[in-house]
């Protein structure tokens, strides 16, 4: 019997911001995304469980990462924020239907 064993390692970056993601701090988050994308990273988990507030400027930062990652053949999975103030924009923009969103990091990892 011949046996071929291949190891396939998938690099997934887990980013876990904390606190508010709004117009004031979204530019910093975008910068971090750009650094990672610049290193050809294309698969991401954004763990929003510790995010306390998300506004549309913050949402725009997440969508820009999704767009860039998908264009490069990757994807972005989210972990649901615990706070209602952070869940609200995700629901109102209906991006809860565009992003894959898991309840925790483990579930998000297994969805890749």
């Amino acid at each position, binding site marked *: 019997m011949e046996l071929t064993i291949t190891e396939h390692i998938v690099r997934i970056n887990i980013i876990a911001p904390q606190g508010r993601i709004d117009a004031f701090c979204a530019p910093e988050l975008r910068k971090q995304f750009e650094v990672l994308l610049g290193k050809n990273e294309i698969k991401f988990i954004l763990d929003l469980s510790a995010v306390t507030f998300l506004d549309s400027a913050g949402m*725009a930062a997440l969508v820009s990462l999704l767009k860039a990652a998908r264009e490069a053949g990757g994807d972005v999975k989210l972990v649901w924020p615990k706070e209602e103030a952070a869940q609200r924009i995700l629901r*109102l923009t*209906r991006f809860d239907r565009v992003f894959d969103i898991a309840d925790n990091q483990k579930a998000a990892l297994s969805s890749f």
Partner: protein
Amino acid sequence: MLNLKIALITTYPPGNGSLNEYGYHFVRFLRQKTGVAEITLLTDDLPEGQSYPTEETPGLVPLQIIPCWKFESWHNPWRILKVIRHLKPDVVLFNIQFASFGSKKIPASLGLLVPMLAKVSGYPTIVLLHNIMETIDLKNAGFNSNPLMEKLTRLFGTIFTRLLLTTDWVALTIPKYVEIVEKKYHTHNVLLAPHGSFEDSPALSLEAELAQPLQIMAFGKFGTYKKVEQLIEAFRLLQSENRPPLELVIAGTNSPNAPGYLEGLQQKCSEEKNIRFTGYVPEEAVARIFGEAAVVVFPYTSTTGSSGVLHQAGEYGKAVVLPRIGDLAEIISEEGYTGEFFEPGDPSALAEAIAKVLDNPERRREIGTQNYIAARGLPIAEVVDWYLLHFQALLELRDQSANGAALPQPSGQPSGQPSGSGITILDFGLGILDCMVAIALNLKSKIKKSKIG
């Protein structure tokens, strides 16, 4: 990869109907997107002697402009649908508000039927609705002064909102508006797509660039809920105080619903040389007009949605003075903006609010910087991406449905249904029910009043 043919029903410069500027900037960025193969604008007819731009720019998505509707016309549904059917677009997008197709009830209503008819005709349809009837102060917005007519207008507003909701998605620009519509209409095919700022990344205007004498500027289409009489009064008050000379710049045109309004005012102020009426401001002059202003004033008597002018003021880092009406303060703070507020109807309160900004460069910079950051947070180029993502999701669901797969319905959401299947007799029934409930409530309150009387 998408290869979309998009039909966009909108106003567009040099047409001066409301939302023309939003249409212009939306299209400007839509043309730069990969995944879009062709854009056709279904615009309003221009007055004789004017024409839409026809030149093609290499590297941009091809743009075709077909004038096929007219403000106040009863023929708009037939004309627009005929063009849509001829084009056979992948998606149809409407950039509208309640009075886009007319200020009179019948043409306005007929125009609002078009999105539903496009959907019924089998085209995936999204409506970007810039205002909702539930938050418009009709009396102050200049639509109705008669209470009975106001109730009737609201009733029709409810019915037409329900009919707009029969399309695949209704996009609203303010989070609170989405929640109001979800709650009132028990629907989930409404989503938040914020207004977005028009410019890519203009530099923050510096104090040194301000015109001298300092300018107080109001920008927009005036005459209905944007009225400048009290601003002129406030300006006179400011000038009578001991401060350096000022200039009041009223930039823009009449609202299509208020012809002759600015001309009348201009005549009354003809002796006051430091009150300047600019008339129509072409796109290339917008940056200068905002850049030179020390403060941008919003002389509104009502709010009808997210303010394009506020976003523009933010793009140029301008301090703003706003009326304390309805939930405007809450709305702008949700979008990250700030400003100085005044009680509407009182020119001295307006003068006081302007003075707080005008006389305090520190405060002016503070407000301007916050507004600049808010505006840069979400450029319209990214809002356009949001629409493309929703188009993609919509078409994927339609394809799944065509292939016989069960449609995912997260949270019991009805959206994403295959084209043409979203409208049921139930929708019409609910519209009629709205009508009957409102009439019954109206009668009940009248009976109560007559008993009390």
